[in-house]
């Protein structure tokens, strides 16, 4: 069995009928979230233990009973309570930036949260307990049975690695997925020319046949390069030279930044217009234009 290829996106359709995609949380993120939650539970248990010790000191069994109950509730329902109150998030998940969502795009119901957290014991506590001391579960069990059940439980534990949505057994039961919603900031529109809404005057105005050479992929790659602050001048120059060669302007000298921004703006207008007429050009065309002198050249 090989690890299932990680599908990076999980798609739901909102009740408005709009598909939304979320990056699926990685196993590492989830493990980190789980460990943080464990630490929190451990600290709270410790606090309870201190209370219990004080109670034993004054010999109050009512307090002991409460502590016993509280520890039970903590361990059995920690995840359930937080995920219900915080809508799919626990303190650990919040720290790791991940959350539980309903697999079918409806709101996350309390029933689903309860169901997905019921199997935790089976997935984590029992494999550990069996490997430490099998006798408590099945006194006098033959070793093949212990090995078999241990293997089975380990398979459950590693289930997230073997399916594309990284779902645990509990996620299957409840039909939930853990995702990592991205935080994207809205940046300046590269094609916008500021507040002045006059007709744009391009220093390097290109012809339709030149713009036809490129597709959406190239446009968005150019966007990425222009938006990233870390782009080296030499990279920009190289890109500008490549474009110049392709569109048949290899003898022109240009101001790199202005040129690239103008290429972006013109190409986007061109491609968006084509899109409105139903033509989506995804990739660039092969080959290059012959040397041409542009009439608008100044």
């Amino acid at each position, binding site marked *: 069995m090989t690890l299932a290829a990680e599908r990076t996106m999980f798609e739901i359709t*909102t009740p408005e009928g*709009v598909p*939304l995609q979320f990056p699926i949380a990685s196993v590492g993120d989830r493990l980190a979230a789980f460990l943080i939650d464990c630490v929190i539970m451990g600290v709270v248990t410790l606090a309870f233990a201190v209370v219990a010790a004080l109670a034993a000191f004054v010999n109050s*069994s*009512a307090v*002991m*009973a*409460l502590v*016993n*109950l509280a520890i*039970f509730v903590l361990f*059995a329902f920690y995840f359930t309570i937080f995920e*219900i109150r915080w*809508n*799919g998030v626990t303190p650990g998940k919040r720290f790791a930036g991940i*959350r539980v969502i309903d697999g079918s795009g*409806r*709101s*996350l*119901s*309390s*029933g*689903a949260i*309860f*169901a997905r957290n*019921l*199997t935790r*014991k*089976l997935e984590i506590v029992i494999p550990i307990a069996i490997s430490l001391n099998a006798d408590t579960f099945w*006194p006098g069990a033959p070793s093949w049975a212990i090995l078999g059940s241990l293997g*089975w439980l380990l398979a*459950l534990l590693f289930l997230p690695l073997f399916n594309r949505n990284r779902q645990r057994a509990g996620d*299957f*039961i*409840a*039909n939930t997925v853990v995702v990592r*919603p*991205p*935080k*994207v*900031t*809205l*940046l300046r*529109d590269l*094609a*916008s*020319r500021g507040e002045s*809404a*006059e*007709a744009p005057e391009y220093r390097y105005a290109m012809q339709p046949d030149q713009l036809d050479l490129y597709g959406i992929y190239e446009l*968005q790659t150019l*966007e*990425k390069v222009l*938006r990233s602050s870390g782009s080296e001048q030499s990279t920009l120059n190289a890109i500008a030279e490549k474009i110049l060669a392709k569109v048949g302007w290899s003898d022109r000298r240009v101001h790199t930044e202005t040129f690239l921004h103008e290429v972006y*703006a013109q190409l*986007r*207008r061109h491609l*968006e217009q084509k*899109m*409105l007429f139903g033509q989506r050009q995804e990739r660039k065309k092969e080959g290059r234009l012959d040397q041409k002198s542009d009439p608008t050249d100044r």
Partner: protein
Amino acid sequence: MSVELKSTQFRKEREETWRQLEELVLRIDKRGVRALDADELTRLPGLYRASVSALSVARAISLDRNLIEYLEGLCGRAYFHVYSNRRGFWSTVAEFLLSTFPNTLRRNKWFVLTATLFLVSGATTGFVMTTQDPDRYAMFVPTEMSQGRDTTSSREELLDVIYPESSVGEALSAFASMLFSNNSRVGMLCFALGIIPAIPVFYLLFFNGLLLGAFAALHHQHGLSLDLWGWLLPHGVTELFAIVLCGAGGLILGHGLVFPGRSTRRENLGRRGREAATLVLGAVCMLFIAALIEGFFRQLVHDMAIRYGLAIGTTLFWIYYFGFLGRARQPAEVRA
């Protein structure tokens, strides 16, 4: 050349809405829904829907990758909050207890009956086998569970457990809470094991039945049957039925996994799993009641008539609860 790009114009017209939504979402992310006042709360769905529709438009007309990614992220984060479960805690609890739980049980009555059958057949087997050969008692009942009662116990020792001498009120609450947490653990385990196609559930149910039967046989031999059932039934009706429900939950899971019907195994497990979880959650509540009865009532009340009275009372109550309560209301979740 014409003026601005269509997608740029579009962005200029709508951007204000997105910024407002982003600000609200950011605050909810940080401090929860309570961070918004009533006015902002009423604006949230409108802003969300406007942004979602903007996302649809942007996907069709814009090639600005950052813009589309921003809107996808924004709509995604707002979606969690707009479609969150914002019903009050107590109304959820009431809905669960008065309608969802009994209705779910009625829908799955065959699983419940199957689980009951396994428990009863285990009990019968345990009773018959222990009656034939009392030494088998030790085989069925682990020492830590028998509270010192085994085949060597005299009639008086058995009676001592059934009618405890000193009822120290303080210790009882600790006893009750211990019973509750222990029973709930067993019940939830019973459910969780259902994902290993149901076989351990059969085993657990049967084994618990065996235990009960062996126990009954031990007391029967000393002529204490009536006293034992008086000791066991007041809480036992509730507790045994809760364990049966957990087992039924496990069976539902196993059944959903082995016989997925027309949907895929995964889909079916997702759907049936919630039903099963509902039963288990209800069973945990029942176990809590059982532990209260077991921890307080049984230790304090020794009169057999009252003990049987309570046993009959709880039986009637559960028959009414599962047979008739909430029939008129249909649970919302099942319809979808």
